């Protein structure tokens, strides 16, 4: 496992600037997730590291050496694609062993055998090694595809939404397993996804990417609790952070604040006693909690409430903003204390 670095990397396809001035250092043993919507440049970044694309400018280093001009085979990376492609005529064992039997990096058969069995155990497909690859469920096939990358010990694993083709339950299981395997192996991973849950639950650090630009890099907690930008604030959190124009909340925020961001758990319902007053629009029962939709001066806000707390549509409630975030007209975070607590949360 090795450090991997991108320095001021740019890549353009015709008129589209896919990646702009992107710098990112991935330390050995780190699980870095690039989070962004379709077209943000995440996959291009991954392909640049793999050597499947060549940057227009900037450098890519792997394990301290400049790899910018190296062909993919020389880079010592393992790629997992979104859609698994297994050799249908081979057994699970032979599919997993395939990368280790490639002429360029052939291992002794005993070593191959040992690694395949280890990885199969980690992925809990140890009992399926003799099966034909096509006689597996979708989830098992994707495990084999991931396993085929994991049998190698490359400088870095590059993963392009490897879980997105799986159903929700399996995705949740594999998320946890993949993270555990990465920790066990001490593997360095660069993983791209548009799924904020995957990013938050697996990453050592998240890089939020938008229109080819890296907006912020930090631990999930840093990104969630202290976004430095309005876009980043809206990327994490479900339901999305509430955004309120600053002039709608009297006396709120430091100078230059145009928008107030309040996470759903920081919008507290109080008794309607002279401060901010909103009206309950709808209560969604999600089981473990309720999402309460509230209208405040024409703004739709969402807050969380205990599922057994009685709240009815049309009811007036007081609102208190706890730990609000402030953003300027350009969406940049404005720091400073702003007491917008209209009344004490109950």
């Amino acid at each position, binding site marked *: 496992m090795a450090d991997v670095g991108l320095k001021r990397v740019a890549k353009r396809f015709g008129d589209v600037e896919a990646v702009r001035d992107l710098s990112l250092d991935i330390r050995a043993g780190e699980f870095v997730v690039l989070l962004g919507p379709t077209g943000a440049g995440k996959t291009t970044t991954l392909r640049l590291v793999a050597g499947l694309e060549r940057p227009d400018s900037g450098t890519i280093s792997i394990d301290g050496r400049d790899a910018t001009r190296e062909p993919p085979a020389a880079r010592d990376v393992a790629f997992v694609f979104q859609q698994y492609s297994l050799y249908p005529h081979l057994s699970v064992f032979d599919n997993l062993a395939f990368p280790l039997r490639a002429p360029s990096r052939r291992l002794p058969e005993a070593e191959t055998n040992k690694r395949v069995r280890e990885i199969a155990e980690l992925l809990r497909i140890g009992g399926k090694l003799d099966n034909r690859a096509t006689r597996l469920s979708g989830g098992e096939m994707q495990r084999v595809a991931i396993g085929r990358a994991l049998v190698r010990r490359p400088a870095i694993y590059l993963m392009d939404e490897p879980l997105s083709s799986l159903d929700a339950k399996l995705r949740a299981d594999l998320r*946890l397993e993949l993270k*555990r395997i990465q920790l066990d192996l001490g593997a360095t991973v660069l993983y791209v996804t548009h799924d904020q849950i995957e990013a*938050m639950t697996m990453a050592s650090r998240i890089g939020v990417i938008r229109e080819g630009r890296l907006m912020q890099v930090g631990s999930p907690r840093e990104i969630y609790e202290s976004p430095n930008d309005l876009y980043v604030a809206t990327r994490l959190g479900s339901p999305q952070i509430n955004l309120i124009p600053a002039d709608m909340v009297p006396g709120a925020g430091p100078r230059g604040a145009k928008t107030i961001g309040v*996470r759903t758990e920081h919008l507290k319902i109080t008794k309607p006693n002279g401060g901010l007053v909103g009206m309950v629009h709808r209560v969604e*029962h999600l*089981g*473990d909690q309720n999402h309460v939709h509230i209208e405040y001066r024409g703004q739709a806000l969402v807050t*969380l409430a205990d599922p057994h707390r009685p709240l009815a549509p049309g009811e007036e409630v007081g609102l208190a903003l706890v730990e609000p975030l402030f953003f300027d007209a350009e969406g940049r975070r404005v720091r400073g204390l702003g007491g917008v607590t209209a009344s004490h949360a109950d």
Partner: protein
Amino acid sequence: MAEIRVEDLRKVFHDFVAVQGSTFAIENGTFFVMLGPSGCGKTTTLRMIAGLELPTSGRILLDGEEVTFRRAAERDIAFVFQLFALYPHMNVADNIGFPLKCEGVARSEIRRQVVEAARLLRIEHLLKRKVSNLSGGDRQRVALGRAIVRRPKAFLMDEPLGALDAELRRDMSEELRDLHDRIGATTVYVTHDQLEAMSMADRIVVMNHGVVEQIGAPQEIYDLPATMFVADFVGSPPMNFIRFEGRLKPNDISVRLGGANVAIPASREGSSSEALVLGVRPEHVSFSDAAPMRGRVFGAEYLGTTQIVTVDTERGQIKARLPSLNQVRSGETVGLKFKSEALIVFDGATGRAMRSALHEGVRHG
């Protein structure tokens, strides 16, 4: 406006029983969701209500009138499919008005109805646009407009949001529910997404292998699942199941779990077998050094407000939803405490929830 009743409805395809004797009533104006995994019979049931599929036996009543074998066109129901086919050469207004045009409605009346439908959907500004230039969400709205414009007695929707990406899906599901509140027509909505069902429904029917597992308000289904299937299917992460040997008698207020007593809501029936299962929702698990049930932290998943901590125990993995403020380390040993007043005991042989004092509480919805 319509009340829909389904009585002992059954559908057999060759040797496959798709729906095995469903009975339920959907009150007028309800947003009713049929929830279950693929192949559970929910879409077949919906198609029988629509008249797109004829039942093998049983009855379907629309406002008290039997329509079981009536053709789809004679049922005054609008069906919204997952993939919307719009006419690409027509503009939005013509697409929405098309069903009325087919029925020979006067042009001025079509115009009036189209504007009204567009107003309900908040797409009045798009009426003159070509559909080929619209975003995914707007195309969906236009397709809905085409269903609304006929003012049917009921809307039947088969995973209408299935093809959209997660974020748009969430927005559209809120919009659909708002639309329902404005129009007030009975809606029957099929989905395999439990979160969508929970957030949109007035009432949910959970189906599995062609059988109705439970019907109830979302909170009731979540708090008081009738079967282990429901408990597992609804909720994310799902309810934890802890299998143990024991016998439950009426009025028992605790169970013996690995040498320790765990308090439960007073039991109202006795178990028929020794195989029991304790059901605990992840948010009802907490860590306590004093708790007799021990485990080792397998991993923690940060979710912002909360985190899901997975703990390996000798009775299998248990997931806890905890505030994200608690720092949890993988490998550390913890004691697991359960919120007694929310526990469910299942009969491990039948998968059925045992009746308890919880079932005597206030019913929601």
